[in-house]
């Protein structure tokens, strides 16, 4: 007799498939029967379908894989499976919301362009902040994973340093390393935000942040990272405005 957990898993899968079918049905019926102002529904449907499909924890090896994965998560120190699920739900909701805005704006030319911009930005931000191991970063080499290693072990360094002992693992001014998990998460966000800036400006911002945070008192590190994150939206706008000015001064590119 299957245990309670595997039954729960199967029920979840059924719900997931049901959601996918409902979303797909919305897409098809809207597109075929109501081609008019109902494009928003189409957009919602497409986004929801993609999101549900992409986020599904499809069981590996006949339905046991998902359960095994969930159990292994439970045994890993410091990882709360409920927290993981909550984060995943949040990410998927954000993706649906932002994609909907983007697609709706595309299909409703009467609308202002603003929702498109906001939607695309939010979608990129959400996608960029996802925990994708082994994801290649920018030239600085500061991928999200590298930053975590940097802060925990000191085995990976940033753009201008290599080898152990440099970067954030370098000698701080206090033995206390502070709340590593929270800081590591904020580091990932810093790296993601830097990707929203023009490339050279983003690289410099991240490199300066890394340099400063490697020397700051560990107890002040969290607040410092938060201050970088708080000022980041304004910086992104300012840097792109400057980049636009620079390109306007240079004029159109000539082939060759």
């Amino acid at each position, binding site marked *: 007799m299957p245990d309670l957990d595997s039954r729960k898993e199967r029920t979840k899968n059924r719900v997931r498939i049901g959601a996918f079918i409902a979303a797909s049905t919305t897409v098809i019926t809207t597109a075929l029967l109501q081609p008019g102002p109902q494009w928003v529904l189409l957009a919602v449907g497409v986004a929801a379908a993609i999101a549900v499909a992409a986020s599904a924890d499809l069981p590996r090896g006949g339905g046991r894989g998902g359960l095994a994965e969930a159990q292994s998560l439970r045994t890993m120190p410091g990882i709360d499976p409920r927290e993981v699920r909550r984060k995943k739900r949040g990410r998927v909701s954000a993706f649906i919301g932002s994609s909907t805005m983007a697609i709706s704006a595309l299909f409703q030319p009467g609308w202002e362009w603003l929702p498109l911009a906001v939607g695309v930005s939010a979608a990129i931000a959400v996608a960029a902040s996802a925990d994708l191991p082994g994801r290649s970063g920018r030239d600085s080499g500061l991928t999200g994973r590298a930053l975590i290693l940097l802060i925990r072990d000191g085995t990976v360094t940033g753009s*201008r340093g*290599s080898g152990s002992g*440099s970067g954030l693992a370098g000698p701080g001014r206090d033995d206390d390393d502070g709340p590593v998990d929270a800081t590591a998460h904020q580091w990932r966000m810093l790296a993601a935000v830097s990707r929203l800036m023009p490339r050279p400006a983003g690289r410099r911002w991240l490199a*300066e*942040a890394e340099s400063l945070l490697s020397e700051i008192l560990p107890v002040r590190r969290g*607040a410092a990272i938060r*201050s970088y994150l708080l000022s980041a939206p304004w910086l992104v706008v300012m840097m792109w405005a400057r980049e636009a000015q620079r390109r306007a001064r240079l004029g159109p590119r000539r082939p060759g």
Partner: protein
Amino acid sequence: MALRLTVQVQLVLQGLLRDPGKEMYGLELSEETGLQPGTAYPILLRLEHEGWVTSRWEDIDPRAEKRPARRYYRLTAGGAVQASAALAGARRPKDTALRRLAEGGGTA
């Protein structure tokens, strides 16, 4: 666009003007002014864009020094004159505002 002399900008300029010829890096300036690094950075960027400040990467071997290179900022000759004039003409922030800023790390 003219530089707006907010309290934070004034603090950064005062910090740099204490010794106009001296180069300061972000953390040093942040400790000097009481501002959070994330607050000071956009100000330094604006000052650099206006030509008041110049900056450079420290030339070190990060492995030997066991830390990443710092970015050093220094007032330009013209920048020092302009900063002094601007601060002289600026409305001096009240002490209570400065205290609040120092307590809040410059984000207030």
